[in-house]
Structure formats: structure tokens, C-alpha cells
């Protein structure tokens, strides 16, 4: 039998306060990131900011500085340039918007400068009006919000106790915030695929949480005499190898997509990979300890009520 982790007896619960500090910082970073993204202080893609994106493939390699010079000569200074993959493909991004005409203009400029020397092809254009971008931003935020609420309700119903639902929701929100925060710090492009990755992450990171919660619920029934935090800690240890293996299989396929897949899904892949790791961490260090804190809080309340009597 091949096993990654054998009979572990790690004291996860005892380290929860360290974890709370780490998670607190990550979540705070996420909140700051969301505010900054809302204010526009982020690498916003045309999906959200509006503007124009043009992808051009040349027959021969080109220098970005050369492209920049050519565009600047035609009064187009406010452009961002990026090479993608090999040096024959470039991305041009600008806040300018003139649907249908700007792409033609850029095409004409290059035709004039490169002509038959270095033929090129416009492979992709995205032109989004500012109104659409603004609408999308709001919609994306609500989509993530409702996803977390829906997940909380589902877990509450399935586990018949609100503490599980709240634990799952907090862990999910933590995962989404942490991933957003790190993505923002890395200054990668904020676009619709990021939102897709975050929502997928919200759903998938709960897989590990559900596995741990299931075991906790089962053990609570079977081992009534033991202390709450002992049961939780041993439950985490019992299912440790499966939470790792399930995450691993997903990490494997995402790595394949990251390396071999389309450029379009590159950012999607790594943020999701990061999210899966954070999700595994949070099912152990966030979701489960919340159950303990909840229990303590309830115990205090009961004592208060009792002492009043």
C-alpha cells in the first residue's frame, strides 16, 4: 500500500492561533486588493476597464521598442505592449476606444511601417465600452458573494448545523480573498477569467472542507466522551492523506494546462493552483478551528445563561 501520509498525529488545532494570524493577513490583503481593484488601482483588463486590446502576429521577430516607437510617432503614446509566448506575437492594450476604427488604424500604421518586409496578421481584438466594464465589475462581485452564500446554505442544510455552514463560508471567503490578494500583488491582469477561477475555486476548495467536516461529524457521533477539540484534531489527521491526494490530482492537470495549454488560460491555471493549495490549508486551519471557537462561544453563552439563573 502506497501512502503519502501514515498515521499522522500532528497537532493542527493547537497551532490554530498562528494560522489565524496568517489567514487574517491574507484576508486583509484580499480586502485591500478588492478595494483597489474597485478604485481602478490594478492591472485591469479591457473586460473591466474598457478599452482596446489587439493581438498581432508577425512573420518575423519584432522588438517591442520598435513597435512602441512606431505607435508613438503616430500619436499613440498611451499603449501598453506585451510579448506573448514567442517574440513574434505582441499584445497592444490601450484605454482608448473607437470600436471598429482603432484596430484598423493600428493595422494601417503597421502596414505602412512593415509592409511586405514583415507581414503581420491581427489575430484577436477586444474592444469594450466603459459602461460594460463597469457593469461587469459589479456583477462579478455579486456573483462571488452569492456563491459564498449559496455554499453556506447548502453546507448548513446538509450538516444540519449552522456552525458547519459558517465554517465553510468563512473558509471559502478566506480562499477567495487570499487568492485575489496574491493575484493583485503579482499585478497580473484582472479579467473575466480571474473571476471564473475564483468561483471555481470557491466550489472546489470546499471539497476538502466537506471531507474533513464529514469525518468530524462521524466522529462526534462515535466518540461522545472525548473532548471537542481532540475529536476535531484527530479527524483532520485521519483524512489528511485523502485531502492531499484529491488536491494533488487537480494540481497535476492544472500544471499540464499551465505548461501546454493556451496562453489565454495561463493566469487562470496558476491562480487556481494556488487557490487549491490555499483551500487545502484552510480546510484544516480555518474551517475546522472555527467549529472549536464556535463551540467555546456557545459554552460561554450557556454558562452565562446558567449563572444568571
Amino acid at each position, binding site marked *: 500500500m502506497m501512502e503519502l501520509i501514515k498515521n499522522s498525529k500532528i497537532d493542527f488545532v493547537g497551532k490554530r492561533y498562528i494560522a489565524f494570524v496568517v489567514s487574517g493577513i491574507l484576508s486583509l490583503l484580499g480586502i485591500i486588493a478588492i478595494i483597489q481593484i474597485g478604485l481602478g488601482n490594478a492591472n485591469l483588463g479591457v473586460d473591466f476597464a474598457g478599452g482596446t486590446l489587439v493581438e498581432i502576429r508577425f512573420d518575423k521577430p519584432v522588438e517591442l521598442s520598435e513597435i512602441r516607437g512606431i505607435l508613438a510617432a503616430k500619436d499613440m503614446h498611451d499603449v501598453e505592449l506585451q510579448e506573448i509566448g514567442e517574440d513574434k506575437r505582441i499584445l497592444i492594450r490601450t484605454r482608448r476606444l473607437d470600436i471598429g476604427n482603432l484596430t484598423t488604424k493600428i493595422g494601417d500604421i503597421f502596414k505602412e511601417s512593415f509592409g511586405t518586409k514583415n507581414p503581420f496578421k491581427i489575430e484577436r481584438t477586444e474592444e469594450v465600452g466603459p459602461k460594460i466594464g463597469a457593469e461587469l465589475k459589479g456583477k462579478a462581485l455579486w456573483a462571488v458573494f452569492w456563491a459564498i452564500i449559496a455554499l453556506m446554505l*447548502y453546507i448548513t442544510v446538509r450538516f444540519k448545523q449552522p456552525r458547519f455552514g459558517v465554517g465553510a463560508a468563512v473558509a471559502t471567503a478566506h480562499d477567495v480573498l487570499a487568492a485575489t490578494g496574491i493575484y493583485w500583488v503579482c499585478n497580473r491582469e484582472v479579467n473575466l477569467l480571474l473571476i471564473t477561477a475564483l468561483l471555481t475555486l470557491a466550489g472546489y476548495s470546499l471539497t476538502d472542507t466537506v471531507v474533513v467536516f464529514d469525518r468530524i461529524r462521524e466522529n462526534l457521533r462515535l466518540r461522545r466522551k472525548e473532548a471537542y477539540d481532540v475529536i476535531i484534531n484527530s479527524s483532520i489527521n485521519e483524512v489528511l492523506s485523502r485531502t492531499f491526494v484529491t488536491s494533488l490530482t487537480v494540481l497535476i492537470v492544472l500544471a499540464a494546462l499551465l505548461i501546454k495549454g493556451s496562453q489565454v488560460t495561463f493566469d487562470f491555471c496558476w491562480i487556481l493552483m494556488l487557490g487549491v493549495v490555499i483551500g487545502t490549508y484552510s480546510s484544516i486551519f480555518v474551517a475546522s478551528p472555527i467549529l472549536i471557537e464556535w463551540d467555546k462561544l456557545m459554552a460561554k453563552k450557556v454558562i452565562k445563561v446558567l449563572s444568571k439563573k
Partner: protein
Amino acid sequence: MRRNMRWNISFILIVSGLSIYYLLPTFQWCNMAQSERDMVSAWNTLSTSAKDRLSELCVLSKEKKKKMLVLSQFTDEARKTSSLWLSMPKAEQKDIEPWCKLPIEDRDVLKKWSTVSTEEREKLTKKAKIANKVIKLGLDLRGGMHLVLEVEMPKLTEKDKEDQGKESKKNVVDQALEIIRNRVDKFGVSEPVIQRQGENRIVVQLPGLKDPQRAFELIGKTALLEFRLVDDARLEAAKDGDVPDGYEILYDNENNQFLVKKEPEVTGEYLTNAYVDSNQNSGGMSRRMVVALQFNKTGARKFARATGGHVGEKLAIVLDGKVRSAPVIRTKIDGGNAIVEGNFSLQEAKDLAIVLRAGALPAPIKIIENRMVGPSLGRDSINKGVVASIMGLILVVLFMAVYYKLSGIIADIGLLGNILMMMGAMIAVSGTLTIPGIAGIILTIGMSVDSNVLIFERIREELRGGKTIKAAIDAGYKKAFWTVVDSHVTTLITAWILFVFGTGPIKGFAVTLSIGIIISLFTAMVITKVIFDLRKEYTTLSI
């Protein structure tokens, strides 16, 4: 127990068979040569009435075909007065007539098809049917254009707003949608999508589009055609600011100014037809493209009145507020025919005829979003997606086989079944494959073995607890069941929210992920269990 299993096995076989049935056309399509695919795709853009013409075309003699090609260059009017037409017997005229009425694009396709041998043609016709059953590709993979249009409501006149409440606001959008649909239908792309979105938006998707500039011209134009009288005498004064009541100054493409009446004599709403013609009268060798117009009775009457009463004056032809030309009225025009001149290329003239035929939009529209992907980029993405999927699949299959040995291989069989059924289901529900959708498939490969991981770990645990192998397997499946379901449902919930929230490509992701997750429940819980149950007695278990 045994009966239950037999039922399970037959169910698995039926579902697998169905999946293969749905997948087969896609496989055949992938094995076809590019030239064949092009032929077939072009064929599928034709209307049924145009398709019916093919058999007629094929039986015609070479000589007749030649005549036909010549005649189809003419406009209806010109054809009927041509010497070639008049020299033909009535029966022959009847044969050729329907052909001449077809759009030029359709004729080109038919011409190409009529040149291949009968045998070949039959083969191709069969293949054309396959094309409709192939997996649908999103615009990001097949190339094409996605436009979001906004109907600009505030620009409706005050009177319109009073007359019409909110109900008719909807009407305006519906009308605009219908007109755009008419324009796009003549455009020659296969399977265009034209949909309403929200209160005043229209989404237009044009797969496989090669000339985006043309699409802007065709779709964005209001196409309000007016004939207005020109007053040259007072032009100079008007230029200095003294514009007479009921008149305004308009420009043409060269920025020349025209003083025209605000009230048009005739508008495009009375048009019955608009078609391309070439004007040979304008002299010499060069044939200039013009758009010929035909008015209905009311239009013809108005036109006759306007021209009759103003011989010697100029009549400006105004399109979307720009003067196209302003010819001098030489005589009263009775027949209800007119011509729009300009420096058109054949394509431009054709497109103008299309938009005029489809009618003017009830309100101006603005393009607020445009996403265009070239076909080569899409092909590149498909190749990369296939490579990444195969690589991910091999890695996961190996991992499971190494980590869980024989049981892992059973899980791998379930995984392969999952991919087969998932692709089959995609085609069966006519889901659209997109770049993020490919990511969804790859993600499913990683997630679908999760169920087996949970089950196998549980079986190991039960074995450690001292159960017999058979009992451990059964307990493993039974106890892990709800954990597996719950973990899948959470992913489904977010996929569903993504589907509601997302646009095209993102929806594609939500669809593949959802289908994959639901089917993985079946493959991981049922298929692998059946394989375990095939053996009645276990002395050892490789897990």
C-alpha cells in the same frame, strides 16, 4: 444483487454506445481534408431553396450554363431587355430565371459544387449532414466576431416617446433586431446568432467572419435613406449662417456643403427592392457600380410628384445624414426606379443594397463591445488544448495506477468512461466548446478521480479496521457516497452561478465543468463499482 449488476452493466453499455454515436460525426469531421470541410461549410450556409437549384444546375448543358452565368451578371431589368435573353426560347428562360434571382455568394457556392463529379457530390452531400452533428465550437476557437449593440433610445424623437410607452421601447429593440437579422442573413456566415440582451441591447455573433470592417458597415449603419430637394440659390447665404426655415446644411464625403430641405420627398420605407447594377452610361470602359432602387406604388407616386414638379433642380440622395449624390432632375420619373451613385466597389455596392433592402433601423445603434478572433488563433488553441488534455490525462492515469495499483487502474477506466460520456453529452445537449471550456474538461479529469480517491481511502481504512475485502469495498462505496456527492454539489453550485453570470466563453466553461462533474458521479460510483463486483470472491485486493 446479481440482477442489479446486470442492469447496471446494460445501462453503462447503453450510455457508452450513445456517447460514441454522438461523437462519431466529430471524429469523421476531424479526419476530413480541409478543402472538403470548406466545401461542406459553404454548402451549409445556403438556404434550402438555393440547395434545390444544384440538381438543376448540374443537368444543364455547358452552353446553357455559360449563358446563365452571363445573364446572372445583369440586373433583372437589364436581363429582360438583353439580346441574349430575347434570343432564348421561353422554356430556356424559365430554366434560368430562378438562378438569376439567387444572391451572388450562393451562386458562387453552387458553381463550385456543380463542377465536381456526381459521385463526389453525393459523398459531399452526406458529409454536409455530418457537419451539423459535429461538436459546436465557440467563437474563441473557431474564429469570428462577437458584437454587443446598444439601441440608442434617447435619440428617438419627442413625439415617439409620447406616442409610445415602455412597451414600444421594447418594440423598437425588437424591430432593430429583426432588421439586423435580415441584414446578417444576407451576409453569408453560417449560424449567426442574433439575440436580445437586457432592455436595449442586441448581441450579434458571426462565426468564421473574415472581414470585420464589412460587418461594422453592415450592422452599424442606420441606413436611413432620404431623397431631399436641394436649394443651390440660397446656399451661399446659408453658408454665412442664414439658413432658411425648413432647410439644413448637409455634407458629402468630400465635405462639400448642400442646402437641403429638412422634409424628405421620399424615404427608404417605400423601397421594394435594391440591387447592384453597373452603370455603363457614365462613359467609356470603366463600369461604375451603382445601387438601383425600386419603389412601391406610394413611393413611385411620391417620386413622380417630386421629380415632376422640380425639373432642372437637384435632388440629393441622403444616407444617414450624409449626401451620397445630388443629381439634377432631368425629367419626371414615373416608374418608381432610382439609382444611388458613388465610388462603390462591388462589395460596398452589394452591402449597401443589402442594408437598404432590410430597411432602416428605427433608432441609431452603437457598438459597445466587439471581440474578434482570427481562425488561426482558434486552431492553435484547440491544438494546445488537446495536447494539454492528453498530458493531464496521462499524468493522472499514471498517478492513480502507481498510488492505488490495480484499483487505480479501475478508477482510470472510470475516468476514460467519464471523458467519453462527457464529450458525448456535450454534443447531445449541443453545448459549445470554448477555450475556458477546454480548461473545464481538463479540470474534470483531475476532479473526477477525486471520488475514487475518497472511496479507496475509505476502503483502506475499513480493511485496516479488520473487515473482509468484499465488505470493505461495499462499506467504502457506501460510506464515501455522501461525501462525494456533497463535494460535487459545491462545485456544481458555483458552476451554475458562473453560467448565469458569465458570457460566451465563460458559459462554455460552466457547461463542460457541470457536465463533467455530474457524469463523474456516475462513472466513479457506478462503473468502478461494477468492475469491482465482477469478481465474486476476493482473497487479496491491490489497492
